[in-house]
């Protein structure tokens, strides 16, 4: 067992994992409608392969990857394609094309699916890469970066370590935790497959110390394999961020944007991704479902579901006993980085690790006071930036100064807003400045 370093910045956040942490993973079942966005991963949207009215089966590919960074999409259950139309995509925050499927309840498997096998020795590296690509695998931690791209680093980059991210440092969420507790063997199998696919010799499974059961299960499962190690991190947000994880576990720092982990010889994947690859190899079923924690003080019975991609959030909340009291906010993802949605009609995406419901009384807005320069945000910033000045410049439209303060390095983890005693929306200001600067850069590049 490796003990990880403390790393830069970060804050202690309330755990809240006890709400759903004891609930075993249940099957959520089949809702009345599934909404599958063509754009639910980082990169180019996928291109539909079906037409309205077509019959589809569970696991059938319904959209093809397009371009270098993209992922394909599969039907989570059998049924009919009801529509291909723009729907509200909560993470993008705008309308985006989606394939809408009306399930027929048969849950009939697509005939073309075939298991690859459960003996890694017998599966070639190229086969693994192909399965990853054809299964539409993306990072299930939240960013939804296509996994296939990660497995094919440029030849001049020497990758020496593969990190499996089971830190789950966001409060409330327990999807990864439950998966590690219940499916440790499969995760390890999937992880070893990922390592083989990327040609990496050494793997480290990273878990925060507030999940002792998961640590035990993963250590047990990893024991037979000398190339695997388990690293235990202290519970501190945002220790599970990709860059923070690399710093804490390996003592390396990823170069500033556009630097990537592979610049320092590392690939990071989420435990959910490893599990999905294991399922794809063993059964042939592509990525059509994922674990979603439905939790928070605002739901009656916090639960962990195995939900089909595209399941409406309202359906999951209903399954979790409905709201308890008046809901104030419904958030896709965790409370620190998740996206608040305006209604519960939105579906679960590949990157949705949780649905968090905060009751109305918990989300009262507090008055925003002037900055008192307490420096808490500076101490908390995991990127060792100066949120106090970046946000101040951003709010007053000094984009150049903000850029000079390295606002583009910001990972938007939200700790600065979290710790601010004046309740200033630092993260929001910084995010806005980032998008304005990015737009300016795009405009400049076009010229």
């Amino acid at each position, binding site marked *: 067992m490796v003990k990880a370093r403390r790393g830069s910045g970060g804050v202690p956040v309330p755990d809240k994992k006890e709400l759903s942490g004891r609930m075993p993973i249940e099957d959520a079942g089949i809702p009345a409608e599934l909404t599958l966005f063509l754009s639910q991963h980082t990169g180019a949207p996928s291109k539909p392969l079906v037409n309205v009215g077509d019959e589809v089966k569970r696991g059938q590919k319904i959209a093809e990857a397009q371009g270098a960074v993209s992922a394909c999409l599969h039907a989570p259950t059998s049924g009919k394609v009801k529509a291909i139309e723009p729907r509200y995509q909560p993470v993008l925050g705008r309308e985006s094309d989606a394939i809408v499927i009306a399930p027929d309840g048969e849950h009939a498997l697509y005939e073309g699916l075939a298991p690859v096998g459960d003996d890694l020795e017998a599966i070639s590296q190229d086969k693994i890469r192909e399965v990853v690509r054809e299964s539409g695998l993306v990072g299930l931690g939240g960013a939804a970066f296509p996994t296939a791209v990660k497995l094919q680093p440029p030849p001049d980059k020497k990758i020496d370590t593969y990190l499996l991210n089971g830190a789950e440092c966001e409060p409330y969420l327990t999807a990864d935790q439950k998966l590690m507790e219940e499916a440790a063997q499969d995760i390890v199998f999937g992880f070893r497959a990922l390592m083989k696919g990327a040609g990496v010799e050494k793997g480290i499974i990273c878990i925060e110390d507030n999940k002792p059961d998961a640590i035990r299960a993963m250590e047990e499962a990893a024991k037979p394999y000398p190339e695997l190690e388990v690293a235990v991190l202290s519970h501190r947000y945002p220790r599970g961020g990709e860059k923070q994880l690399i710093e804490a576990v390996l003592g390396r720092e990823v170069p500033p944007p556009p630097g990537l982990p592979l610049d320092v010889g590392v690939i990071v994947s989420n435990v959910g991704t490893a599990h999905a690859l294991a399922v794809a190899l063993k059964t042939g079923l592509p990525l059509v479902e994922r674990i979603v924690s439905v939790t928070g003080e605002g739901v009656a019975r916090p639960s962990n579901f195995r939900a089909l991609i595209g399941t409406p959030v309202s359906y999951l909340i209903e399954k979790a006993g409905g709201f308890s009291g008046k809901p104030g906010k419904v958030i896709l993802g965790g409370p620190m980085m998740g996206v608040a949605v305006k209604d519960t009609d939105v579906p679960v995406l590949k990157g949705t690790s949780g649905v968090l419901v905060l009751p109305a009384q918990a989300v009262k807005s507090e008055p925003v006071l002037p900055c008192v320069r307490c420096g808490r945000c500076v101490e908390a910033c995991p990127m060792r930036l100066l949120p106090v000045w970046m946000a*101040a410049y951003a709010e007053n439209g000094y984009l150049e100064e903000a850029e000079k303060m390295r606002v583009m390095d910001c990972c938007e983890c939200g700790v600065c807003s979290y710790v601010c005693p004046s309740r200033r929306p630092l993260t929001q200001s910084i995010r806005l400045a980032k998008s304005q600067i990015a737009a300016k850069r795009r405009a400049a590049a076009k010229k």
Partner: protein
Amino acid sequence: MKFISIMLAGVLTSNFIFMQYLGLCAFVGISEQFETALGMSGAVLFVMTFACTVAAAFEQFILVPFGLQYLRTIAYILVIAAFVQLVEIFLKKTAPSLYKALGIYLPLITTNCAVLGAAMLNVKNDYGILWGTVNGLAGALGWSLAILIFAGIRERWKFMKIPEVLKGFPLALVSTGLMSLAFLGFSGLFKTILK
């Protein structure tokens, strides 16, 4: 000892800005940006030090021998203007990068009362050429220290909710007052050992 005491007086205990009210216009006018304040400081350091040398030499070799002290004011202002002009030409020829950095500030210095003030104080204190130069350097250092501190404070006003009607002179003066209040702490520093 005299060197230390002149330096100390110029920089801390009788700072040109905070204690002698010299060079205020430029102090308020050119302190909105730290970088420009830095440029101005460099120019003032250079000009004030050597303008004092030149003025003191002029006093000693021309005004006193010919009994023309009553024309001092006119003589000094001409000497300083000519000196600044010379520096400008000299820098342009020999150090273009430095000229680029300081160039725009140089003409402003002619009317900076701190320079003429330093030269006048040298006469009042009977400093002569050497100590006059030291005093010029000390005064310039003190002036630079003051404007750099103030520029640091002022840069923050850009993104603070500073009342718009009071920005500029009213707050600049109140701030200078508070700064000079803090500088009162240096009063009498080392006087026991220097005297």
